[in-house]
């Protein structure tokens, strides 16, 4: 491999336009004649709209159109950007007269300015009948609570996901030690810095959309179905995107924007306010978990029993698929495993996809219990986990998935090495919390699919077209590196065009940590097909047989000498009678979803007088396969650590129990870590290689968030000597970051 391209610290290709302000995000586009759209939202978590009168709105100069629930009555859909699945319930409306959460969409308006939109929202005359709201899983499951969607499910506990291996009851009965606990994790918001937005233009029989979109091809499928159009009539383009973290793996307000555009004949921009973002997009599922762990005195963990209730909010969206993914994340070789996941409707904010997709919740509960087991047995927490860890060739409990590569020992060794260095610097005593986690590369049901095409230019530079959407993580740069490496050309010679349903080939979507693994494999195939096609064309032009043309390291060999990639391109394009245009194309359907692994250590120290816990350091080492770009991987690890620390420490969406009103309605009331909160971070990606990965790479996207809250909570539990069962820790403990620490 060319070390100057693969594994290097290459600055990302799109950083330049982001750092000089010239890069364009959705809100930076304003097509001619554009209007603004806004959504009238329910002020109550559960109500019925008895009457709605838009006369005063329509009378306002500058208001161009209004749409009401009766205009879209027949349409039900599921907004999730997953490929089609029987698990996904179509329970959403474009607009509803029976709002099921505070923020549910009731009407929409298009006007000439954002100011007019805001004013217009205040002039709808709506009469509500306020209904009792179920604001927790417990309330939703109470037999006296009516089902939220009686036409779809008789119970609010509307889907059950199950995975089994062995016989968990017998397994637990045979164990020397059984530990159990009931754990709870909060609903949290991904809070991408760029607000959710789209610009929709319905012209004649076609729709053009710019949107913050992780899954343009799925969104196109849903919209085309909804409006009875062929998919070719709907074009979705994802411009630069200010983060997603799962939240944009679905449609948000594109349906309303499209209809407003259809009605006005003009492009309509829908731009959420931060408050709407908090209440009317999607969150990570709040979870209640009952976990049992059975072990022998020698430390062997032989049985694990996990039952989870997820608060999916008012609508299904991703709910059941999140549970399905969650049940497949045990990285310890237990003989007996039972997982039960309940998807429960409530009148809370709708939950959807968020980085980790069910994994952070169970990893927290499981790792807490494993740490207690280590203390009970007097064992080192790292070593106890290693003793039970899956090895290459093992099957992940409850699944048929084989572990194709695992470098967990190296992760532990590297984490230990860093820990020793940190300990040497710390004067005060502190406690380390340890947590492991495993995620997958691509969807764990292997539904990931991606494709790429490559166009060759005369000078040997190429145009790489990708379906995958870079949402800020840097996948476009990584894909360009992979193409350059396989083609044997310079990185500057690869130009990437991506995530435009009209001009790039299909991709399942940016989710499930798919980009590097699934998208990268598609790029490898496309590059190989380019080489093959170019070799064949070169043979024709030079009048030799294809078998006589070889290729290695960016150079073609022919019977009469060598020929560089660029020379070959020139000869083939302008080579007389046999000249032609050469393409490469590749489609990759995941046959494996190689697991990735992380080891996280968080250190806290407790002030004996005040009881305040100081978070001093956090370490994370990962096995993400062969690293394509160190810069990107480091950003992913540290960013995941910051989000994980936020999850463990301070983040929680809160609703007033009495009124059902959102409390955490903006970025001040909902706290995420600032530069002053984050402790010293240490990260490393260890040497590893996966045979199924593109150039040996696995994925890194979600993994790095998953174990952090658990490691923090374990450190806190060890520091305080009090068992912890719920997140965030700020609900019961005082925490702070150590000032005057050195960033590494």
């Amino acid at each position, binding site marked *: 491999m060319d070390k100057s391209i693969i594994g290097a610290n290459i600055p990302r290709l799109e950083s330049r336009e982001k750092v000089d302000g010239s890069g364009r995000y959705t809100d930076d586009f304003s097509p001619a004649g554009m209007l603004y759209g806004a959504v009238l939202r329910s002020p109550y978590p559960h109500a019925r709209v008895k009457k709605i009168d838009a006369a005063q709105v329509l009378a306002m100069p500058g208001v161009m159109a209004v749409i009401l629930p009766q205009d879209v009555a027949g349409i039900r859909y599921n907004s999730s950007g997953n490929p089609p699945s029987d698990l996904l319930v179509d329970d959403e409306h474009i607009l509803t007269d029976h709002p099921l959460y505070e923020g549910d969409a009731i009407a929409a308006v298009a006007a000439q300015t954002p100011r007019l939109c805001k004013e217009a929202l205040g002039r709808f005359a709506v009469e509500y009948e306020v209904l009792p709201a179920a604001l927790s899983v417990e309330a939703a499951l109470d037999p006296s609570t009516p089902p939220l969607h009686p036409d779809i499910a008789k119970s609010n506990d509307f889907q059950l996901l199950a995975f089994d291996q062995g016989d968990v009851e017998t397994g637990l009965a045979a164990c020397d030690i059984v530990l159990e606990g009931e754990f709870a994790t909060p609903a949290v918001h991904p809070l991408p810095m760029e607000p959710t937005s789209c610009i929709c233009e319905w012209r004649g029989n076609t729709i053009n959309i710019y949107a913050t979109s992780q899954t343009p091809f799925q969104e196109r499928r849903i919209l085309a179905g909804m409006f009875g159009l062929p998919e070719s009539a709907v074009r979705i383009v994802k411009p630069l995107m*200010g983060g997603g973290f799962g939240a944009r793996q679905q449609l948000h307000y594109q349906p309303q924007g499209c209809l407003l555009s259809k009605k006005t004949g003009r492009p309509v921009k829908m731009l959420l306010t931060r408050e709407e973002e908090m209440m009317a997009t999607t969150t990570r599922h709040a979870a209640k978990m009952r976990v049992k762990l059975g072990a022998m005195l020698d430390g062997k963990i032989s049985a694990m029993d996990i039952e989870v209730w997820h608060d999916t909010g008012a609508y299904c969206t991703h709910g059941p698929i999140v549970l399905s993914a969650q049940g497949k994340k045990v990285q310890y070789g237990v003989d007996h495993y039972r997982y039960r996941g309940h998807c429960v409707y409530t009148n809370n904010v709708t939950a959807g996809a968020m980085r980790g997709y069910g994994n952070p919740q169970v990893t927290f509960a499981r790792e807490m219990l494993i740490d207690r087991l280590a203390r009970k047995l007097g064992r080192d927490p790292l070593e106890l986990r290693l003793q039970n860890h899956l090895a290459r060739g093992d099957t992940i409990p409850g699944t048929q998935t084989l572990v194709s590569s695992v470098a967990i020992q190296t992760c532990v060794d590297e984490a230990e090495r860093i820990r020793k260095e940190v300990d040497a610097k710390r004067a005060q005593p502190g406690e380390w919390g340890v947590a492991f986690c495993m995620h997958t590369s691509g969807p764990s049901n292997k539904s990931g699919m991606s494709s790429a095409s490559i166009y060759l230019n005369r000078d040997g530079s190429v145009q790489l077209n990708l379906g995958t959407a870079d949402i800020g993580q840097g996948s476009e740069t990584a894909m360009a590196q992979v193409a350059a490496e396989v083609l044997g050309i310079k990185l500057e010679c690869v130009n990437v065009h991506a995530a435009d349903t009209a001009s790039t080939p299909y991709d399942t979507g940016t989710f499930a940590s798919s980009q590097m693994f699934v998208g990268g494999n598609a790029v490898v195939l496309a590059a190989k097909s380019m080489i093959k096609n170019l070799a064949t064309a070169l043979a024709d032009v030079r009048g030799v047989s294809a078998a006589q043309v070889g290729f290695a390291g960016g150079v073609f060999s022919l019977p009469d000498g060598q020929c560089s990639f660029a020379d070959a391109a020139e000869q083939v394009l302008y080579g007389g009678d046999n000249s032609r245009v050469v393409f490469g194309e590749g489609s990759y359907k995941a046959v494996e979803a190689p697991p990735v692994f992380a080891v996280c250590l968080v250190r806290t120290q407790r002030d004996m007088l005040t009881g305040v816990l100081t978070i001093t350091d956090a370490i994370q080492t990962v096995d993400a396969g062969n690293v394509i770009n160190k810069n990107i991987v480091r950003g992913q690890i540290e960013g995941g650590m910051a989000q994980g620390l936020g999850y463990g420490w301070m983040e929680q969406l809160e609703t007033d129990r009495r009124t059902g009103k959102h409390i955490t309605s903006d970025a*001040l009331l909902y706290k995420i870590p*600032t530069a002053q909160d984050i402790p010293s971070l240490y990260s490393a990606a260890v040497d590893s290689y996966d045979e199924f990965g593109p150039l040996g790479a696995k994925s890194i996207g979600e993994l790095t968030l998953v174990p952090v809250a658990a490691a923090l909570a374990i450190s806190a539990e060890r520091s305080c000597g009090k068992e912890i069962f719920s997140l965030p820790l700020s609900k019961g403990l005082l925490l702070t970051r150590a000032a005057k620490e050195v960033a590494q």
Partner: protein
Amino acid sequence: MKLNFTVNGAPRSLETPPDQRLLDILRNELDLTGCKEGCGEGECGACTVLLDDKAVLACLTVAAQLEGAQITTIEGLTENGKPGALQAAFVEEGAVQCGYCIPGMVLSAKALLNETSDPTEDDIRRALAGNLCRCSGYTQIIRAVKRTAKEMGAE
């Protein structure tokens, strides 16, 4: 009202309502879309620009406060079409991920470096505490600022 002020060194004069946000003036009137809106409520720092060399939030600053002011936006930091020192350091250090917070982050750092050429890590963290970044752990950003300070000191 008639507003006369300077943006990235160029004098500007325009007709605007006095309560028009600086953010909208920059983005809509002057097409300086590098100034980003993350919340519109002074919570996220994405809209940070420099007003007379101090960092301010463009979403909370209105036209009436701008008469005679010198505004610097992210577009104004490029030197002869090349990224300025801070911008280049952000790219090199891998501090730019989704990039949405970055213009504001760079300008907050710029305001800090206008005040002190040798900031401590705590100074940097404090100066950036009003700029939320959801992609990073801030360490690459902090390194980029340190590196720029060092390079400036060496000059």
